[in-house]
């Protein structure tokens, strides 16, 4: 495996975007970074800057306004990148799927690589999803 690929697997910098969730998944994403779960031991850093992110973590269903923001974040993020949709809403719209201002999961807006189930998803699941995303990142590398 190439050195860069190996480094990539150990250094996922995440960009978290809330597309319209109820907050449950968002606080669980933050909780995944805090002492009990400490995702940083896997090199996860919440970087907050799309230009430097590797993994886009999205929560919540998409609505027209957040979809535009999400789309632009996705476009700003340089390759290789993977998208993790956290929670039932991000996957399908969840309980909000039939709400008037919601048009479904985030995969209607950007391609999603990993779906993390749950309402809200647990931090363990989120970390699991990130690892799965890394595996996809490796596949994209052809490694």
């Amino acid at each position, binding site marked *: 495996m190439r050195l860069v690929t190996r480094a990539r697997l150990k250094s996922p910098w995440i960009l978290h975007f809330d597309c319209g969730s109820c907050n449950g998944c968002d606080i669980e994403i933050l909780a995944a970074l805090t002492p009990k779960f400490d995702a940083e031991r896997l090199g996860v850093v919440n970087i907050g800057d799309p230009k430097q992110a590797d993994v886009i973590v999205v929560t919540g269903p*998409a*609505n*027209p*306004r957040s*979809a*535009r923001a999400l*789309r632009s974040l996705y476009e700003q993020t340089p390759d290789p990148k993977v998208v993790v949709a956290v929670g039932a809403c991000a996957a*399908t*719209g969840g309980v909000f*799927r*039939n709400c008037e*201002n919601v*048009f*479904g*999961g985030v*995969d*209607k*807006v*950007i*391609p*999603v*690589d990993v779906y993390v189930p749950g309402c809200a998803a647990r931090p363990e699941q989120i970390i699991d999803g990130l690892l799965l995303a890394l595996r996809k990142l490796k596949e994209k590398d052809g490694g």
Partner: protein
Amino acid sequence: MTAQRIVSDGGVFLEKVRELRERDARFITITVIDCGDRIEAVYHFDTGSELVNLRLEVPKEEGLPSITSVYSAAFVAENEVQDQYKIKVSGLSLDLKGRMLKSDAPVLAVSIPSALEGGTQPTGRKLGRCRESCPAMVNVPKYVRQIAAGDIEGAYNTILERAPFPAILGRVCFAACERGCRQYRDERPVRCRLLKRYAADSLVQLKQRRERAKPTGKRVAVVGGGPAGLTAAYYLGLLGHEVTVFEKRGVCGGAMLAYIPRFRLPQNVLDAEIAARIEEAGIRVEAREVESLENLFRQGFDAVFVAIGAQKGLKLMIEGEDSPGVYDVMEILSEINVYGRRPEVGKIVAVIGGGDGAVDAARVCRRLGAESVTVFYRRSREEMPASLDQVEAAMAEGVDFMCLASPVRIIPGKPLKVVFQKMQLAQEKDEKGRRKPVPLPGSEFTIEADTVIRAIGQRVDLPKGFNLEVDERGFVATKDKAGATSMKGVWAGGDAVVRPKSVIEGIKEGRAAASAIDKYLGGSGIPEPVVDESELVPRPHDASEILGIEPATPKCLEPTVRIKGFDEVEGGFERDDATREASRCWRCDWNE
């Protein structure tokens, strides 16, 4: 609700609000109720000791007066009202113009990623499972909805975007879409295939109004007029190229014409649909055999698509195979279909093989007067490649099936004697994941038959002059999914590549090749239909609304009547049945 004062006049209302402010009341929020042409707004205030509600009723077009001049904090609630009820609040201090909560841009402004049409990721929720299962990716959900809405012509054209023969496919397709349907699990899939047939059959005129692109001046030769060849020719023709189909029989249709029995696909349907397509795309058909591809290029063709099919029947490789009375499945079928003869098959017929061809041959033999027809297959029923519908129809017509039996030798004579050996399935699997049959020692048995029909597969009979690279089994070798061959400017598809397959797979390859050829000739490929989000219809809130609809079943001929002739066995849907069936679609492509 406690204390309520009803005020209707705007001026008096503001006065009351001002009064409340002097009492140091806190503004809480506004509740608006839509009463048709009027709206009812309840303003809530908290005076510290009690909740005060002011009710204001105004006509919708008049809108609400803003109270931001008294309570500046009300701008949030008022902007929200403006958003949610599309009414004007006049005199707002910070007017967000009805865009606080909602975006005025329609959903379409968000570009849907190109992954949608190409079928890469995420295919998950956007195509619908039926569409994903279809080799040619026909937009099944869309045409099903169009049929439900009564737009027959639209449905037919939706299918044409991806597959040019709806009427034919509606009869002979193995309907992967139905197996993909989420109601398949409950054994009641939406009968997409029959809906397709319904759409085609209800049209008075199969020929559609199609805009052909400006002539490009490029000439393309298509060798072979089967499903793959005609598909490629059709799409290339629409793209403005001048297409010539070389068909040695002079009549187009290929395998659809020669090998599919007429009781499954009536001649008139086949001819009408092919003729319509040929006319729409301006295709020229030339009845001659092509000897060499170089010749075609020399005649001024810019690109060639080879779709010559696979006609050479595979041999059993056993003793006595060449005895009289042993036929190839293709010989029998084309005898009837192409030349209109009725070959003599005797009373007892043994068919060897397990594909659709074998089943068709067996059913044909029943119609030719054979009293006992048995299909011998060396694996078990689960492995049989023939589609279940066909097998069931054959059984209803009195065809016997004998599985796990493989011929060892044929002893010539009248009647023929065929020695079979029983087989069992080994644990190890072959490259396709099927369990391998191994002979069971000492289990040989002999049967007698007037005719033995071999139906174990076909190979390509590639003319020597073609000079194309072939793979180890004699099929044309291709370099990519579009079917580019070893020769520049030559593409191949259909049964001539890899293995004999279904009509729909041939169509898929023909379309892919057409797109590649167009790009090669300087075009931009077949344009992908634009996804219109508005065409997606939400499903009802209540699942029982859909699940409560009874599935429709088409009428079929009685087995005793069927075997008397070559009339079409399966019936189509009536109008009511079709709309009802189409409305059973769960709309998986809209939302999961």
